[in-house]
């Protein structure tokens, strides 16, 4: 399974292949910063319709992994595929299928929310009628109606975050990469966000969620991966992580146990 499959002229085979391939494939990826190995031989795949949560202490390599998933950074070795497209060699095609919501949302200060969404539609080459339709849908979904026609420079953090989510979902991406989405959001917005993420996964999208909010992860994630010192030290459902860690408690206990255990191993 790979990008070669899509070069076949038989459209039927091509579509079947793509539907079977994981949405995200991280294959033996390493990322080196000078002498520091930020990501160490990572192997991971996330399927369509799956909400995958990515946990790890600060400096473990989460952000580096996310930046590689979005095509901002390239792996020093190994490869990453998005729906079969290699991010290094077919980056533009792969990026058409991804949306990235960073922890610090970027908006053009001198555009209104609606203009920003129209710009996103233009960037993804969407037809105008389709963009207008989707904008109205996003306004309803995220409750943007009151401020969508104001310049974004006047938005609060919560409004910005909602606008960024709306822009991320506008073009109906196959893969949604989300980094710390709940920082600075009120409980109602957090609830809304959890529902949106879950519903996107149920629609068949792959969600890659990085967060320190373990309660949210525990509630919404199908599968959880824990990265520690650049290595994916555990991956699976909450139940399987409990088994791996030997603790029957909360995700917090599992997380602390897994990272402690590995720290001790590294120290030895």
């Amino acid at each position: 399974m790979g990008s070669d499959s899509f070069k076949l002229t038989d459209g039927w085979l091509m579509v079947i292949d793509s539907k079977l391939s994981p949405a995200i494939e991280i294959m033996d990826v390493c990322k080196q910063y000078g002498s520091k190995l930020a990501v160490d031989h990572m192997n991971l795949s996330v399927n369509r319709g799956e909400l995958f949560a990515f946990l790890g202490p600060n400096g473990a390599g989460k952000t580096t992994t996310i930046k590689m998933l979005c095509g901002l950074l390239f792996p020093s070795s190994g490869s990453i595929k998005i729906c079969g497209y290699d991010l290094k060699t077919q980056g533009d095609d792969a990026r058409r299928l991804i949306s990235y919501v960073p922890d610090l949302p970027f908006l053009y200060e001198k555009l209104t929310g609606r203009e920003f969404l129209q710009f996103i539609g233009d960037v993804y080459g969407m037809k105008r009628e389709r963009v207008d339709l989707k904008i109205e849908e996003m306004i309803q979904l995220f409750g943007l109606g009151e401020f969508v026609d104001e310049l974004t420079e006047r938005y609060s953090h919560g409004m910005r975050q909602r606008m960024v989510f709306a822009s991320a979902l506008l073009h109906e991406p196959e893969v949604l990469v989300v980094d710390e989405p709940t920082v600075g959001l009120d409980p109602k917005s957090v609830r809304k966000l959890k529902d949106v993420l879950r519903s996107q996964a149920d629609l068949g999208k792959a969600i890659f969620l990085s967060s320190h909010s373990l309660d949210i992860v525990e509630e919404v994630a199908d599968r959880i991966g824990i990265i520690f010192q650049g290595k994916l030290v555990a991956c699976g459902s909450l139940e399987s992580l409990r088994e791996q860690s030997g603790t029957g408690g909360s995700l917090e206990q599992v997380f602390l146990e897994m990272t402690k255990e590995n720290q001790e191993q590294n120290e030895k």
Partner: protein
Amino acid sequence: MKNSAPNTPLSEQLNPAFPAAFPASGFALFKMKKRTLFNQASQLKGRLLIRPIVLLFCSLIIWGLIFGTSLAGFNFLKQQKLPLGGGVIGLLFDLLFFSLGSLLVLSSGMIIYGGLFSSPETNFLLTKPIKADRIFAYRFVEAIGFSSWAFVILGSPILIAFGVVADSPLHFYLYLPFFFFGYVLIPGSIGAVLCLLIAGLLSRGKKLLFAILVMVVVFLCLTAMGRFFNSVRKDGIDREFVDATLRQFEFSRWSGLPSYWISRGIRAAGRGDLAKANYNLLLIWSNGMALYLGGAFLSKILYRRAFDRMIAFGSDAKKSKKLFFVDSIFEKALGFLGSSKRAIMLKDFRAFRREPRQWAQVLVFGFLLFLYFGSVRRSFRGEVTWPYQNGVSLLNLFAVSLLQCTYVGRFVFPMISLEGRNFWILGLVPMPREVILWSKFHFAFWSTTPIAVLLVIFSDFMLKMPMDYFFVHLWTTLIASLAICALGVGLGACVPNFKETDPSKIAAGFGGTLNLVISLFLLIVLIALLSGIWHLNHSGDQYYAPSFNGTLFIVAGIATGSVIGLMAMLIPMSAGSHYLRSKEF
């Protein structure tokens, strides 16, 4: 299932929102830029137009001054029966465009570097399916627009003055914008290509490379200056001097240089020789566009890789836990200040020294000034007279203060703005907020005044000025330093720009321009009162003690200048303190 579209990209098959063609994302970027500019213009409606009016007014003053000076200069040449289409004017134009072009290479290269590699917008765009060459094109246009306005403001008054004096036909003026905009493509593209190559291929050693580049530029400048001063070390200005001078700049007349094409083209348009003007215009545009395409092609191959390298190697160097020896010296030298002021100053000093792009410029200009002061006496050896000594020493004093004024405007003025969103850290420290302001003032004063004082002493020493000149000049430098530093810090607090993170953009914005204009005006007033009257009273054929009335004028001038200087220090600092105290973060 979807058999009808075997070659359709997967993204489109999975997602019906996409059209068949690859998104015209490059066009989307320019459309967005147009919209943001339109929104910015709309915001001006119903608001005070002080900002654009001040900017326009300052630009017009600079334009008018250059136009007036050029008009006088060309008229002088005409009176001397020098042909306006001849060698001397040709050389002047060659040199003008060569130097402006060289500056454009540097400025557009640096702006493109910032735009391509260290802007949050770039991070955002790179996660979108936008081709690398389209992001490059977007950043290129932005950089060219940002860096070439100075070219237009400096170049257009000179050329229009030339057209007026040379009685050029109307089409000469119509040609000018086409020559200008075609020409800026060439240095802009060269700057962009250099930026991509440096970032893409040499990231690991970029600081070292930058230092080497600066040293090469300084060396070339020194060599050129040395050659120039050697050539003018003659008795009087005669034919031999003119020929020798022309020979020094022969390199700018090489027919392969774009500056030569624009110089020839514009002069041809001025004479009405349209065939030659068109030929050179086409030469400029075709080369400019070819170079731009080269840059775009390179960006396609290198840009994303370069971005990856910049992040991967950018933060490799670990800082030592121990106090760096320069920081230690800095901290000990400021032992007389309170610990909180010292801590803030040390923070600013560290940020400054870790940014070679900042201090390298100051170092180069300071060193060039030092070199000039060392050579100025030798240049006129054998015939230097007292009026020359008197006049040149005043000009040197002005040059030193001007350098200090530029430094404060470029580096000190943005300091409060750069605290930006992190201001709450300093804001929560248990000390009055004016301490923050005074620490910035001390930083500005103590990092510039000793250098200014040394340069002034060196200049007077080389010119063998009498001792009383030393005291007058030092007092002037001291008062001017206090006023300029306080103005930069105080105004920086009164009109901060907390949203901008690029100090050059803060300095080039409304507040920065206002600061520069007021500083220049203040500098002229202070130097005129504190030293100008003194120099006027000594402007005879030789040095002699001033008369009683002259002494009265001098004392009155120094006293008035000192009072104005101290007021110019206290008023902005007080206003800045008031602003900071009342500011909510």
